[in-house]
C-alpha cells in the first residue's frame, strides 16, 4: 500500500509540469542563495574571516532598499516599481559596501593576527549591534521588527506578481526575477574575478597573501575592496528578499539568511566561488524538491529547511572540505 502510494507520488512528481515547477523554484532559490553567500565566500577565501555579521548586512539592505521602494515605488506602475528597485539596489549596494569598508578598516583589520576565535567574536558582536540598531530604528518608526514589512511587499510591480504557464507549471514572475539576479551576480562576480586586476589579486591572495604582498600589492587594500564587495552584494540581496513574501524585510532576516549562507559556503567548499555557485544550485534544488514532497505527501512544511541542513551534515561527514574546498585558505 505504502509502495503504491510512493509510486503514485513519484509519477506525479515526474510529470513535466511539476518538474519544470520544481526546477524553476530550485533555480530561484539558488539565485537568492548565491547572492546571499557570494560575499561570505569571497571574504573567507581571501581573508580567512568568517563574517557572522553578513546576515545582518543583508537585513539592513532589505530595510534600506525597502525604504527606497516605499518612497519611490509605492502604488506606482511596473515601470516605477522596477526603476525604484534599480535605485534601491544601487543605494543598498553602495551604502553597505561603504559600511563593510568601514567595518574592515576600523574593526576587523585590528585582529587579523589574532586567532580565528577573535574574528568570530568580533563579527558576531557587530551582528548584535547592527540587529539591535535596526530594531531600535524600526520601533522608532512604528514598524514591527519581527514581522515582514508589508508596505515593501506592496511595492512589488504587477508583472512580478503574475505567473506564466509553462508545460502546465505556473511560473511566478518573482521567481524569474530572482533567477535573473542570480545569473547577474554569478556573471558579475566571475567577470570581476577573472577579468580585472583586483580580481587577479583576490584569487592570488586567496592562495598566498604573503607572496602577493611581496610582489608589491597592497593586500590590505585588496582586503578592504573584497569586504566592501561582499557586504555590497549582501545588501543588494536584501533588496531582492524584501519583495519575496517567503523572506521579507524583518530583523530575524539576519539569522534566516546567515544560516543558509553558511550551509552553501561550507557545502561548496570554504572560500571557493565556483563551489558556492554549485552548492547554491544543489541546496536550491534539494529545497524545492523536498518542499514539494513535504507539502504534497507529508503535509509538514517545516521539514524542507531541515533537509538543507541535512545536506550540510552529509557533506561534513563525506567530504568535510566541501565540493571544491582546499585544505587551507586565506592568510594575512
Amino acid at each position: 500500500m505504502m509502495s503504491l502510494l510512493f509510486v503514485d507520488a513519484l509519477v506525479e512528481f515526474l510529470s513535466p509540469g511539476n518538474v519544470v515547477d520544481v526546477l524553476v523554484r530550485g533555480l530561484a532559490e539558488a539565485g537568492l542563495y548565491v547572492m546571499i553567500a557570494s560575499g561570505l565566500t569571497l571574504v573567507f577565501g581571501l581573508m580567512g574571516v568568517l563574517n557572522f555579521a553578513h546576515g545582518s548586512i543583508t537585513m539592513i539592505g532589505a530595510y534600506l532598499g525597502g525604504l527606497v521602494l516605499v518612497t519611490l515605488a509605492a502604488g506606482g506602475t511596473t515601470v516605477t516599481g522596477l526603476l525604484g528597485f534599480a535605485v534601491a539596489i544601487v543605494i543598498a549596494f553602495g551604502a553597505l559596501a561603504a559600511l563593510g569598508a568601514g567595518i574592515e578598516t576600523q574593526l576587523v583589520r585590528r585582529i587579523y593576527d589574532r586567532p580565528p576565535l577573535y574574528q568570530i567574536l568580533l563579527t558576531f558582536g557587530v551582528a548584535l549591534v547592527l540587529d539591535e540598531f535596526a530594531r531600535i530604528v524600526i520601533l522608532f518608526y512604528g514598524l514591527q521588527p519581527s514581522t515582514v514589512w508589508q508596505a515593501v511587499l506592496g511595492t512589488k510591480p504587477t508583472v512580478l506578481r503574475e505567473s506564466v504557464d509553462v508545460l502546465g507549471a505556473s511560473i511566478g514572475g518573482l521567481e524569474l526575477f530572482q533567477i535573473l539576479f542570480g545569473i547577474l551576480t554569478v556573471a558579475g562576480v566571475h567577470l570581476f574575478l577573472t577579468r580585472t586586476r583586483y580580481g587577479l589579486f583576490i584569487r592570488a591572495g586567496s592562495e598566498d597573501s604573503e607572496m602577493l604582498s611581496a610582489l608589491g600589492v597592497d593586500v590590505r587594500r585588496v582586503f578592504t575592496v573584497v569586504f566592501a564587495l561582499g557586504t555590497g552584494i549582501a545588501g543588494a540581496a536584501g533588496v531582492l528578499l524584501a519583495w519575496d513574501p517567503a523572506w521579507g524585510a524583518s530583523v530575524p532576516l539576519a539569522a534566516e539568511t546567515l544560516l543558509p549562507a553558511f550551509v552553501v559556503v561550507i557545502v561548496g567548499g570554504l572560500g571557493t566561488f565556483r563551489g558556492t555557485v554549485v552548492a547554491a544550485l544543489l541546496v536550491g534544488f534539494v529545497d524545492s524538491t523536498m518542499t514539494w514532497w513535504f507539502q504534497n505527501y507529508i503535509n509538514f512544511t517545516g521539514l524542507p529547511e531541515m533537509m538543507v541542513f541535512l545536506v550540510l551534515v552529509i557533506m561534513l561527514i563525506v567530504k568535510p572540505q566541501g565540493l571544491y574546498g582546499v585544505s587551507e585558505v586565506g592568510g594575512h
Partner: protein
Amino acid sequence: MSEGESPLLELENVHSYYGDSHILEGVDLEVHEGEVVALMGRNGVGKTTTIRSVLQLTQPRDGAVRYRGEDLVGLDTNEVAERGIGWIPEDRRMFSQLTVTENIRAAVPEAAAVDEKLDLVFETFPALDERQNARAGALSGGQQQMVAIARGLVGENDLLLIDEPSEGLAPKIVETVANTLAETAAETTILLVEQNLPLALDVADRFYILDHGAVVDSGATADVDTDSERLRRYLSA
C-alpha cells in the same frame, strides 16, 4: 664595488624571532650595487629568516635593515617591494590555481606594461611559452622555478632576494637556472641563498656564512673553492 660607496642593502645587528625563538642574533651584512652576494650556511641557521627580515615578513625586533640608506624596519612588505626589492622564494610559492600568465601578471607593477613583460618572459623561457594557460600547480618543479624567477624579473627590481633556486631540481634544470641567474646578475644586484656550493661560488662575487643566527665568515668567492677549510667548517653536514 668601490670602497667607501654606501651599500644598496645593509643589515646592522639584526635580531629576529619566531615567537620566543631567537633566530637571528645580530646579523650584519652588506650588498653593494651590481654585486651578487651568496648567503650560505647549514639548514636552520637563519638564511631564510634573513631574507624574510629584509622583506619585513618577519619584522626584526632590534637592529636596522637599510635599503639605499632608508631603514625598512616597520614598513609593510608591499612597501618594501615597491622600493625595488624582489623575492624569489625557497619553495617557489606559486599561485597554484592561477595560470602561468596570471602568476606573472600579478607581479608586473604597471598594468600597462603587462603584455611587453609577458613577451620578454616567454622569450627568456620558451618552455613556459608552451604552457601559458596551464595552471601553475600542474607544472613541473623546473617550470615552477622558471615562473618564480620570471615573477622576480618582471617586477623591475634593483635587488633580488633569491632563496635556494636550485633546491629539488634535476641537474639539467639547475644548469638552466644557473645560466638565468648569471644573465640576471649582469643587470640586477642579487642576495642569493644557495646550498649548492659550486653554483653559489660560480655566480657570486662575495659570500657570507651564517651559523647560529650570526655571520661567522665572509669574503670574496675568488678566495675560496668548494674544498676550502673555511667553507667546510660551517657548511658540511
